[in-house]
């Protein structure tokens, strides 16, 4: 992330698919030596245990969030062309699929892991909300890798806040402005709407930054009909790679119609 109104990092990626698969890792904790960014603070990994970084198909670095024991949420533009990978630490295979409307602003993808994602003991997966689209002026928490004004990704996790703007203009997206804004490496990362106490829920996925007079961060919203349909359809199609049997996919959801959430979901 970077301070809003600072210089934007630009990435023009090749659209050719690379042969190498996606590789997911968990980021390092910030140290005393890690650079500061204005408007953000160094994040402690223990507070964000379900956040992963990965190298995407075209060599880009992206973020993913574990939202269930075998589910990762990320941006579609990070998996263009090839959608398979592994979680480095555990070697667990990962297969990703883009939202069917990804050409029409729905820049999100879901990834299914062949085995349970291993988090540190006692740590929870993040919870998504498919009913809540944040309203204008809501302050969201953003997570990112702290690209500073020059030099790119620092490789450690930062957190900060930004305020929602233009929430209702389109169903698929919303924007935030002020505070921190998304920067290189933050694609696919989650936008969190804080609840009471330490509760939080994922309401969007980082997609793009827009430079100009008032720097904006663009997020793909989760609370819309096509995305609910995508989640439900995708969850019902995942199969065990060995047996081919359909696997019931558990997703940490805050939803009246899905009151039963798996254990280990962040409240």
């Amino acid at each position, binding site marked *: 992330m970077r301070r809003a109104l600072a210089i934007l*990092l630009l990435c023009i990626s090749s659209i050719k698919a690379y042969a190498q698969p996606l590789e997911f890792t968990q980021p390092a904790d910030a140290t005393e030596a890690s650079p500061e960014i204005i408007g953000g603070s160094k994040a402690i990994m223990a507070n964000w245990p379900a956040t992963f970084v990965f190298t995407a198909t075209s060599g880009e670095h*992206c973020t993913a969030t574990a939202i269930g024991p075998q589910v990762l949420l990320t941006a579609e*533009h990070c998996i263009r062309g090839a959608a398979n990978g592994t979680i480095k630490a555990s070697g667990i295979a990962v297969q990703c699929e883009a939202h069917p409307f990804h050409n029409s*602003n729905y820049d999100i993808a879901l990834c299914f892991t062949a085995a349970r994602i291993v988090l540190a003991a006692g740590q929870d997966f993040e919870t998504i909300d498919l009913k809540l689209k944040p309203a204008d002026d809501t302050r969201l928490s953003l997570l990112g890798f702290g690209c500073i004004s020059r030099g790119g990704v620092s490789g450690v996790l930062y957190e900060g806040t930004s305020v929602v703007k233009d929430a209702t203009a389109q169903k698929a997206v919303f924007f935030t402005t002020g505070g921190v804004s998304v920067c290189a490496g933050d694609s696919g990362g989650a936008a969190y709407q804080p609840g009471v106490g330490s509760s939080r829920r994922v309401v969007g996925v980082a997609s793009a930054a827009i430079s100009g007079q008032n720097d904006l961060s663009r997020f793909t919203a989760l609370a819309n009909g096509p995305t609910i349909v995508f989640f439900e359809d995708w969850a019902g199609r995942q199969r065990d790679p060995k047996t081919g049997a359909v696997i019931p996919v558990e997703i940490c959801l805050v939803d009246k119609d899905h009151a039963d959430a798996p254990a280990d979901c962040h409240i």
Partner: protein
Amino acid sequence: MKLRFLGVTALSATLVSGCTHLEVNRHGPDSTGSRSGYAYMLDFTQYQIELKRTLISCDADKVPEVKTEATITALLAPDGEQVYVIDPESMISAFKTSDISITYKDGRLVAFNASTVDKTGDVIASVAATAGKVVLLASGIPIPVSDKAGKAQMCKDDAVSNLALIEANKKPIKAATDALDEANAKLAVLTAQFATKPTEKLRTQIEARTKANAAAKKQLDAITKASSDAQAWLTDRRTATWPDDSSTFHAWSAYPLPIGTADKWFKGDAIRGVIARDQTKTWEDTGDDNKIHLIIEGERGAAYQLGMSPEAFRARYPELNPAVDVTECRKAAGSACGIRLAQLDNDLVNAVYYRSVRAPIALHLVRRGSYGSDKPSAGSSHPKAGLRYRVPAAGTFLICEANQECGDGSGSEPIAKVNGAIAQLGTVFNISFSSPAFASGSVSATFDDQGRLLTAGLKRDNAAALAAANAVGSTVDEAGKVVKAKKGAELAGITNATTLAKAKADLAKAEEGLTKTPQQLASEQLTALQTQQQIEAIQATLGPSQAKDLTNQVAVAKLQLDLAETQRKRAEDPHADQAAVKAQYDAQTGVTNARITSLEAEARMVEAERALAKAKAGS
């Protein structure tokens, strides 16, 4: 201040009956009335804009920055939408035909039965050269925030290398300039010593020093030229005149970076690829059926993005309408819908590219204060309304980023702005005149070159017809004398002598509001012209080397003016502390200083050669 005199100094009296009215008809393209008479036009304010865009940064991890600067000159132009025809028939009396004399310049009435007015030169208001504004290219294009390990670059290799060369040359230019300055001083000292007491030792030292300085100068010139050439490559200049007519007050997207320059500087295909993949498609949204549909109308709509009316959109893309399922249409690439959608996608990419990368500008004429309007003032259409004139309103000419307003209250900084009187924001007034039977009179009015009323006079004399005729005759004679006296005035084109006289006159009649005061501008003009004239005179009598000295001095003086201008712009530039902007000013200053030093080196070497030659001739 120049005067424009519109004077009716005599009107005929009639012994027959009725009144005499001065009749002036408005003439338009649809006018069906008689075109017989004396036609004249009002003026409107036009601006000559010298637009300079410089690519100032192109880092791999940043959006390119282009600095846009403008030099604005306000002009007066004849307003084809305000044409009036004076009906001479309305002036004819039973006794005599009015002796009517009309004088024009550029379609403007400058005299009516009265003295002519010197209308030399069209520059009527301030010339404003602004520090400009840094515009981020690709502003508004969403950029995906994945990070590529190998940093991507939006600019072409030549752009990157030219920027790098200018940066790399800064220190060597400074070092070489300082060294040559010192060497020049040493040579001057040696030459002065030699002139006092020529010795063989000094001669040898001078010859060696001259040779060394010549070599150093050559090196400095080469590196300075390389930086200047690189800077010229990174700069695009164009001149435009706006508006075309008096009823245009806004242009929302004009004068983009030429295609050739954009293609020269930027990787157009790569940028279009980013736009195609990652642009926020405001014209596609999810319907209640959870399918994706097109939005055509409104600010979010595809038609608006393309700058088209909805009707034009429907004509160009007949298969596309809000009912179409965009996802299914895209899947069926070979279908009529699929082909048309692909065409729309491509057109939208180009539209976004045009807006974001070719960075057009917006132009606005805005009223200041309570007088005036941007709704064209028609004035009275009644023929008996008499002479029409327009009083300009106080206004501001603004150059903004495309599709934006800017300036006070808008929150957006302008690229350039100039305050002044804007004729077409003003109201058209009229001076009518009628003379009853057995009466005569006169009406006069004087205006300045902005069309503002300075004086007005009305006289009516109810004397008997003969006395009235005599009065008319004598008044006409007086007017005739004035006309004859002024006939000798030469309204020549712009020449050195005329410009010199104008500069002297302006010095005495300055107006405020220029970027430099008029006194400063006129003094500089005067000095430059006088120096130029001196050079021309001296060249006829002196030898070439002495003439070269003077030419050198003028060149150095001009460079010092450039240096002062750069420093002034830097002091006023709100972006001066931004790295790329600071780098550009530093480079510009370094090159100008190097050129001054190089010219001074040439002067010192000529002096030395002259001293050696003189000593040789003496021996």
